[in-house]
């Protein structure tokens, strides 16, 4: 395994990815970021921390998650061989638990006992509430009012787990605004509270730490595809919201001759204003502490993103993705709401796997793209989460009410 080797400049714990990243936050947060950075770096060489985390990942989260050869999908599409990395089978139903648990354990070391987090789809909120229930920590989750409506089952799950869910009514009432409120809480309670950010975004050291806890996805996938096929894949495809599942996956393949594709949400289309295709349509700017691609107007006001998927509905993106875009190492594309729903149906009907709407974007993109590829092509598709949380959204989109008789 060559990730994190010293010669691999692109994969280290770093404040800057090219010009991207950095630490653009109020002075009050600097001590907490410095403390977090120190604790994380110490934890990396702490055998006790690592064995505790590994034990939880294996026996609580259920890692390694399987890699499944999607034979029906492969047959149906009749072109490439598709392998699904099944993060939907991780405890709580998405990759978010890897990071939430890692950061929560880190907190124990720092000695803070109150956790705050933001959530869009509710998956990071549920994962954080779960980690806090298990590790006995106080937990408050900020969630946009709009997202509370469309992800109701996850709101109730968080409450059952003992978390306080705080509705956010400012701005677009979605993920961006939930992060704003979490940051305001953190500035206020910084001495007792840790902020578990849910994606590879935010000020340094968050993008590196989140990648650090998510790279297990890539490490496992690389080993699994090698033992299943004896070769590396031709393509690896993942959806990109803030970019944590994607960076966790991509990080293991950066030095390989493997094509990497990140799929953003195109909402109603990138030619309309209703999308969340940050890298495709944005320009570099600073939001939530990092310099990265950003959807913004000509005055530098941040624009509201739009996607059927709450987890991709964010006008920013993790700084390392901006860098990987500019260097050309990863190709960033997008899929519309409609294409995501096609992907959702395709995977559900052919493989009996109901994916979350976020990875449905990757599936939707792939089903278009595959027409051009050939039979020997091997593809890993990252299924970052399961779709239970989205049933209501899909039904509503189709004019069906789940409360009526189906």
């Amino acid at each position, binding site marked *: 395994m060559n990730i994190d080797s010293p010669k691999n400049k692109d994969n280290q714990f770093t404040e800057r990815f090219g010009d991207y990243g950095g630490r*653009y*936050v*109020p002075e009050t947060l*600097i001590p907490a970021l410095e403390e977090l950075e120190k604790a994380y770096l110490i934890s990396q060489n702490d055998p006790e921390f690592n064995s505790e985390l590994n034990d939880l990942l294996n026996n609580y989260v259920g890692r390694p998650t399987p890699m499944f050869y999607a034979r029906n999908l492969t047959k149906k599409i009749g072109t490439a061989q598709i392998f699904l990395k099944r993060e939907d089978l991780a405890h709580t139903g998405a990759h978010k638990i890897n990071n939430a648990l890692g950061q929560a354990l880190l907190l124990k070391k720092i000695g803070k006992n109150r956790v705050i987090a933001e959530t869009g789809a509710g998956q990071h909120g549920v994962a954080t509430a779960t980690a806090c229930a298990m590790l006995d920590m106080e937990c408050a989750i900020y969630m946009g009012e709009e997202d509370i409506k469309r992800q109701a089952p996850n709101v109730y799950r968080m409450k059952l787990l003992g978390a306080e869910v705080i509705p956010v009514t400012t701005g677009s009432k979605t993920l961006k605004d939930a992060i704003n409120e979490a940051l305001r809480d953190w*500035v206020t309670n*910084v001495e007792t509270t840790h902020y578990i950010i849910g994606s590879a975004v935010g000020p340094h050291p968050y993008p590196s730490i989140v990648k650090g806890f998510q790279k297990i996805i890539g490490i496992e996938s690389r080993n699994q595809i090698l033992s299943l096929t004896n070769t590396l894949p031709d393509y690896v495809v993942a959806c990109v919201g803030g970019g944590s599942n994607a960076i966790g996956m991509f990080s293991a393949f950066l030095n390989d001759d493997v094509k990497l594709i990140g799929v953003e949400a195109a909402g109603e289309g990138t030619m309309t204003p209703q999308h969340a295709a940050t890298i495709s349509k944005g320009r570099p*700017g600073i939001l939530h502490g990092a310099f990265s691609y950003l959807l*913004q107007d000509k005055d*530098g*006001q941040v624009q509201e993103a739009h996607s059927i998927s709450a987890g991709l509905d964010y006008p920013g993106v993790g700084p390392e993705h901006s860098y990987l875009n500019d260097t050309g190492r990863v190709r960033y594309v997008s899929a519309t709401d409609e294409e995501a729903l096609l992907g959702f149906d395709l995977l559900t009907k052919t493989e009996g796997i109901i994916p979350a709407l976020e990875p449905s974007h990757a599936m939707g993109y792939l089903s278009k793209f595959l027409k051009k590829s050939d039979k020997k092509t091997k593809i890993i598709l990252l299924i970052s989460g399961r779709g239970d949380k989205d049933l209501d959204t899909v039904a509503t989109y189709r004019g069906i009410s789940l409360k009526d008789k189906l």
Partner: protein
Amino acid sequence: MKSKITNIIKEQNKKGRIALIPFITAGYPSVEGFINVVKGLVDGGSDVIEIGMPFSDPIAEGPTIQKSSHIAIENGVNIKKSLDLVQKIRSSGINIPIVMMGYINPILSIGVSNFAKLATNVGVNGLIIADIPNEELKQIQISSEKNSLDTIPLISLNSSKKRIELGCKYAQGFIYCISILGVTGSRSSVSLDVKEKVKMVKNFTNIPVGVGFGVSKPSHVKNIKEYADAVIVGSALIDEIAKTKNQPGNTAKKFISNLYKETFK
């Protein structure tokens, strides 16, 4: 060349007074109303005026300033329009020092050195950026080198000695000491820890030190006067303007002159 902001604050201090620095969002409560507020603040006895450039995601602000920022954006005010408004203020004959406060993204969006040039041209004297730590001030200074724009650092209650030293190193005009852990907004009391912080800051610099965030009452100002050189009052003023609706200029004038009278009586 000495800073105009520093000079005015020191003049006040020589008279045994603390300098009063009100904060108002550009374009709040309306574009016209804002101009009247600034006039009222000057008439009421302000020493320096801090003007907020509205941003969509103001993470350092509490509900009051968030709301004023949102309304200002709805009133069509952006970064350039904010500077236009300063020009209007200057051409009406007001020459009190003006400090702009903003967030980094809109400034970056028009270019830091371009912003510095435009701001200097319309008569802005200083700049505060809420969401950059003090090491980034160096870059801002390099980009605005040819202009006489003071970069004003923020020091927090939890800033270490090392970080205070860093802030002081790049400080011009005055140093802004944040009186609470938290976002802007009126508070019922001011923490005793601020006094210690201000003392620490003064070990590193002769530049005046101002205290702000949460300051809302004459009794707060009276107390802060004992150890700091300037005081910043924002949310309390904006709350007052929001309450009265009509004649924001008069409200602003009354607010400041009352604060002035109560503090120095």
